[in-house]
């Protein structure tokens, strides 16, 4: 049996989008060190159910850090204290026996709380819908490596594509700005040859949709620190440049 921890939890409870929320204080005793943060919540929930209390709702799916469904504020940090780690990949051994842990959902006007720790992130879907695609003819699959792409460009695109859309960047941002997410979603298409035909229209549409929902970036850099995929702030600079180029030169007429 591995070591166990006794923790004091302060968890946000809110019965619905328009309800008033409040912290629930609950002791979480005998939590195995090897449990993930979500497994710890599972254990707490089982005990709540046994006590006839409604379990805590939280978002989760893959539990291996790739889907972006999980994510809560843990002690004032998005996805908790561990760098480059989603909530589901955060392990309880990172905490000490007797710690108090404060758990809150993401908070932003466009991320309304659905219930307890679960928020509605459809604002992100709206941004992606606005231009996060390429047009490709269907039919026989093209040969691999048919279009030569410099290695650095492919790497940069892959780095941006690592974004799992978890929303930690918005949650961590004092302005609730979605610059990191949007710039990652733009960059992974905008640097590749396949992304060129829609590049300028995409940039305009996605940025302007982002501005419908989120605040204005003041370059704090909190998003990058919170991001489980360590998406770089450089993508934000690329996005700013592309956006103004798109606006100024009407480049969609000439593709690049």
């Amino acid at each position: 049996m591995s070591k166990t921890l006794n923790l004091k939890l302060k968890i946000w409870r809110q019965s619905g989008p328009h309800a008033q929320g409040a912290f629930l204080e609950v002791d979480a005793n005998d939590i195995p060190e090897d449990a993930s943060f979500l497994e710890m919540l599972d254990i707490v929930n089982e005990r709540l159910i046994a006590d006839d209390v409604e379990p805590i709702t939280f978002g989760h799916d893959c539990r291996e850090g790739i889907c972006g469904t999980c994510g809560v504020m843990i002690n004032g940090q998005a996805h908790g204290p561990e760098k480059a780690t989603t909530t589901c990949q955060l392990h309880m051994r990172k905490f000490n026996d007797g710690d108090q842990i404060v758990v809150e959902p993401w908070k932003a006007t466009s991320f309304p709380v659905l219930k307890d720790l679960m928020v509605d992130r459809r604002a992100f879907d709206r941004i992606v819908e606005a231009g996060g695609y390429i047009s490709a003819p269907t039919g026989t699959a093209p040969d691999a490596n048919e279009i030569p792409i410099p290695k650095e460009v492919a790497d940069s695109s892959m780095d941006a594509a690592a974004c799992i859309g978890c929303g930690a960047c918005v949650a961590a941002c004092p302005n609730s700005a979605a610059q990191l997410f949007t710039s990652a979603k733009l960059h992974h298409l905008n640097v590749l040859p396949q992304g060129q035909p829609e590049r300028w229209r995409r940039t305009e549409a996605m940025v302007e949709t982002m501005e419908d929902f989120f605040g204005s970036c003041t370059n704090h850099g909190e998003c990058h620190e919170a991001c489980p995929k360590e998406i770089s702030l450089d993508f934000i600079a690329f996005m700013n440049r592309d956006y103004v180029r798109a606006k100024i030169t009407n480049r969609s007429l000439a593709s690049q």
Partner: protein
Amino acid sequence: MAQTIADHSVPTVRKRAPQLPWPLNLYQTAIGKKYAMALTGIGLLGFVVVHMIGNLHLYEGPTEVHEYAEALRDLGGHLVPRTGVLWVLRLGLIAMFATHIHAAYSLSRMSHKADKSYVGKRDFVAANFASRTMRWTGPIVLLYVLFHLADLTWGWLNDDWYAGDPYNNVYVSLSALPIAIIYIVANVALAVHIFHGAWSMFQTLGINNPKYNGMRKGFARGIAGLILIGNLSFPLAVQGGLIDIDNHTPGSYAIDTEENG
């Protein structure tokens, strides 16, 4: 029967206005406003640096300060009316200042609408004192600029103020300890504001390249430090007796305001 799922639409933080003609449509967007802030920030930063360097004439003496002031009025030589170029620069400065403030104000409102605060304590990792106080240091600098104009340009605050004798005016103003303290506090706020702004503008303008990214923070630190040291030196030098009016008759260069323009 098909199940209906209530679609609560996602709350937005703004309503889109119809697009204005180019280039105003750029200023309608948040990123466009941020560009405006960065570009006007560069202009204002340039002014602050030149102003600080010009003020170093205080260490040379009253005559040199007077000559410097005259040289500013004579910019453009005989090609333009006297003080003509100076007025163009002043109007440009006012326009940049106004744009910077307007953009900052509307972007702050936008962020304010988008943000909901946490009930628990936030633990910031990257945001520093400078970045988190931009919305405080900005208004402080604005109030300070107004105070500074009233004090030294218009002479409203001092009976010993003489038009056209900046050396004397600076001396009498800064020799009062409370005024010197105001200048010191305001210039610390200015330097803190510049520290974040000077880094932030590269990011906003999309000036980003691994080759020189490392230098951007260094640039911000250097320029903020330079301005801090330069501008703090004046009140300190007056208070410490390094700048005095022992060999200067106050108002001896004073020109009557009509000729002064």
